[in-house]
């Protein structure tokens, strides 16, 4: 297979899953630049495994698992804290594009403030808790799907989910976002 044919075959396999993968990258990293890096690294890795990829029945799930493993590897390798800045946070710059507005600016502003507080609260969670709560409660993954993606047993996922929600509630009540 020529390089051009390889590229075409690769694109046909991965492109249908781009939106799902990009969402996962965002939820894992919480910042645009890191999400794009992770997405890019996944594609590079997947391209190097093209021979395997063509044989896989559900490439989307496989790609998600590889992305999650890359995220974990990266986190372990650098043992770095997730950086969260206004520019790269959910509400800065490009983040606003993801927020559909209404015709009521007061309502929009209130919503922005609440989301901003949620953003700050999520940043106070550990990566393990943040990822589980976002995948389950925001992205709608089932517990079994999180287990399949992360390799973490359902019981542990449940426990992390419970603790993450409780911590979020605690933070959001304390700062007056919810009462």
């Amino acid at each position, binding site marked *: 297979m020529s390089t051009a044919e390889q590229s075409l075959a690769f694109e046909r396999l991965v492109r249908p899953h781009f939106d799902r993968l990009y969402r996962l990258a965002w939820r894992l990293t919480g910042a645009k630049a890191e999400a794009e890096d992770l997405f890019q690294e996944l594609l590079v890795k997947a391209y190097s495994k093209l021979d395997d990829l063509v044989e896989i029945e559900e490439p989307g799930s496989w790609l998600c698992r590889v992305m999650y493993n890359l995220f974990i590897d990266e986190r372990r390798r650098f043992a770095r804290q997730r950086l969260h800045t206004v520019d790269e946070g959910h509400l800065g710059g490009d983040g606003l594009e993801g927020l559909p507005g209404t015709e009521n600016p007061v309502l929009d502003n209130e919503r922005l403030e609440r989301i901003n507080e949620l953003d700050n609260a999520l940043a106070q969670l550990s990566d393990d808790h943040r990822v589980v709560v976002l995948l389950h409660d925001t992205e709608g993954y089932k517990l079994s799907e999180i287990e399949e993606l992360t390799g973490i047993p359902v019981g542990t996922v449940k426990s992390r989910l419970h603790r993450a929600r409780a911590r979020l509630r605690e933070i959001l009540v304390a700062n007056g976002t*919810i009462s």
Partner: protein
Amino acid sequence: MQNTDTNRQDQEVLELLKDYPMPAADAAFYDQALVRATHEGSRRQRNKWMLTGFGAAVAATIAAWMIGGMLLNDPQLPDAEMTIPGVTMALAEPRTVNLVFASATALDSATLTVSLPDGIELSGFPGQREITWETSLNEGKNLLPLTLVALTPVGGELLARLEHEDRDRTFRLRVDVT
């Protein structure tokens, strides 16, 4: 009453989470990512062949470094106490440093990571401080030529980390810039 409050608060948290926005990717990002992936993937495959072709294969039994054409044979595993080999470079002039690893056995799916000191770049990887290859290594000597460029006169220590399964070994190369 307290349980009621908690339940209502939990519900509010869930509603907030469901409503938590996320921006779409930039219009051109997917296309650019695809191009970069196929380009980078091809380059890594070439690097893999380059390493394999020269005999790749290190693992836990790397034994020798060849620096600037000078072979430093050492049948023992290098350790932190050994004198760190070094190379001297001129500022802004590319210098090819040949690293030779010798392995007692062939190894599949080894990972080689080169970490560069500040001010030193690997030709073809502008701005990258860490470059990783996946490679298969054969029994014998394995040559990895690295073309370095010094952007500042500071120099430092280059690290080459080889990982295979649960084993890893890190080699150091002192880089002086004149």
